[in-house]
């Protein structure tokens, strides 16, 4: 399995704070790689650094063999990286349709792709001409993910998609992400919900204090309760 995304020795400073302290990670093509860790471990900073929203102070980031650490965010997006931020960041003043029209950078909306998206996000079809600001939290998350997959992307960076959502919505969202995974998407997924991580992840990276402290198979971590407690301060059983 080739690695689509590789980070080697990446450091990121935000102001005087040294957040990422030498990150080494690889995201294999066609897999879902979970990025777990406690609050403040540096997970969101990692995604934002890959996306170019915060500049890496040192280190290398390569996408399909191409160095991207010094590229601007729009250039990284144009290389085929879709980003779903923690805040969802839908354009609330724009309609659902307008949000997706903007996300479809390369031309008009593709009907087949839209039908595929509507298949698991039916709310988006129904509220097509409604302002995104009037959607519920779960529907906004759907829109945010739909925006990232409205055109084929090499890599999806998704930051805590289940955060703040009701359990029933989380289950539906997991099914959606599984469907996206079945299409062969490569995803780097930050998640605090260990149940969702276990359902979706092929491999797992655990962060602490700006470094990767564990890497391995998601199934192995899910089966090892003491390791979960040591790395994350919780066990899957306790989380459920």
């Amino acid at each position, binding site marked *: 399995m080739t690695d689509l995304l590789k980070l080697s020795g990446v450091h990121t400073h935000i102001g005087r704070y040294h957040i990422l302290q030498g990150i080494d990670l690889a995201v294999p093509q066609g897999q879902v790689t979970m990025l777990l860790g406690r609050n403040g471990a540096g997970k969101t900073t990692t995604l934002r650094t890959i*996306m170019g*929203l915060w500049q890496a102070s040192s280190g290398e980031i390569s996408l399909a063999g191409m160095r991207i650490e010094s590229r*601007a*965010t*729009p250039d990284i*997006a*144009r290389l085929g990286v879709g*980003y779903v*931020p923690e805040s969802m*960041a839908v*354009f*609330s*003043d*724009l309609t659902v349709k*307008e949000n997706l*029209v*903007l*996300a479809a*950078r390369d031309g008009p909306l593709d009907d087949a792709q839209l039908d595929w998206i509507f298949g698991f*996000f*039916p*709310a988006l*079809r*129904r*509220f097509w001409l*409604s*302002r995104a*600001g*009037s*959607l*519920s939290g*779960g*529907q906004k998350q*759907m829109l945010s993910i739909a*925006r990232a997959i409205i055109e084929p992307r090499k890599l999806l960076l998704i930051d805590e998609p289940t955060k703040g959502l*009701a359990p*029933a*919505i989380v*289950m*539906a*969202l997991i099914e*959606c992400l599984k469907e996206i995974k079945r299409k062969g998407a490569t995803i780097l997924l930050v998640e605090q919900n260990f149940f969702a991580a276990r359902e979706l992840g092929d491999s797992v990276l655990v962060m602490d204090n700006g470094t990767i402290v564990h890497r391995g198979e998601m199934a192995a971590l899910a089966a090892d309760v003491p390791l979960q407690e040591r790395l994350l301060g919780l066990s899957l059983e306790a989380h459920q």
Partner: protein
Amino acid sequence: MTDLAATDPLPKPKRDLAPVLLPIALALLMIPLIGSTSSWLTLTAASLAMGMMIFIMASGLTLVFGLMDVLNFGHGAFIAVGAYVATLVLAPFAASIQADSLWMNLAVLAPAALLSMAVSGALGLVVERVLILPVYGQHLKQILMTTGGLIVAEQTLYALWGPQIIPMPLPASLRGSFILGDVAIAKYRVLAMLIGLAVFIAIQLVLNRTKLGLLIRAGVENREMVEALGYRIRRLFLGVFMTGSALAGLGGVMWALYREQVHASMSDDLTVLIFIVVIIGGLGSIGGCFIGAILVAMVANYGGFLVPKLALVSNILLMVAILMWRPRGLYAVTSR
């Protein structure tokens, strides 16, 4: 079933009409206070004309504020430059301007306005590249740089045209008034209203019917996410900045014709009004800017008629009142 399946109807978005009703309510409230219907109509027409001119000058600034969080205290330079450039066309064709033919007047006025817009827009390009690009994200430096730019621009105009006030008479066909019963409405004010309305409609069409407009609206709300979708927002901002500068130039020509004179510091008082309009309208909101401009003009005109001593502070009081009601302006677009 979850809300992902959309079983429940989505609440209809509320149309926020309160700000739209505000100038209407204010105008109606003034009828008994002013007493004379003809005076009220004259003042209302003057307010709408003045409001449209202020809107034209402020519309670019509100998008610049909202889109890139740039405090451009030098916006007034584009107004003055626009007015001076118009004199370059109007002076040699003074005979055509004073001819009693609307078409001859417009044949000179239109190129003068277009040239003013082109020069102001080009100046906007230079200002953005030279003064603003190095200080993105640094508000204090933006204020210093753009205020310095305004001073340089004013002094350059003095050096090129001299310190004297340059007359800019209205074209012959735009002098006088339309008489409706015992009400007289100046022809030029009607033209100013029509141009302002046309600019407002054009901006609304671009913002709501084109992908470029979608990008601008999205960028005002969350420029980082627009970049994460693959759009180079700096280029977009440059385009908006140049357009805003060009509109300020157009506003400068219209204001100079309204006052029938041009001088280098003509924008000093206007800049205060423009900033008040941008703030009370809500940063980045064209609709708010439009209503705010009308409100500011109404308060200036009605206030000047009823309580002349309050004229100097009336717009500050208006701003305080609006911000107490809606702290982020009439229509909050950005979270700033």
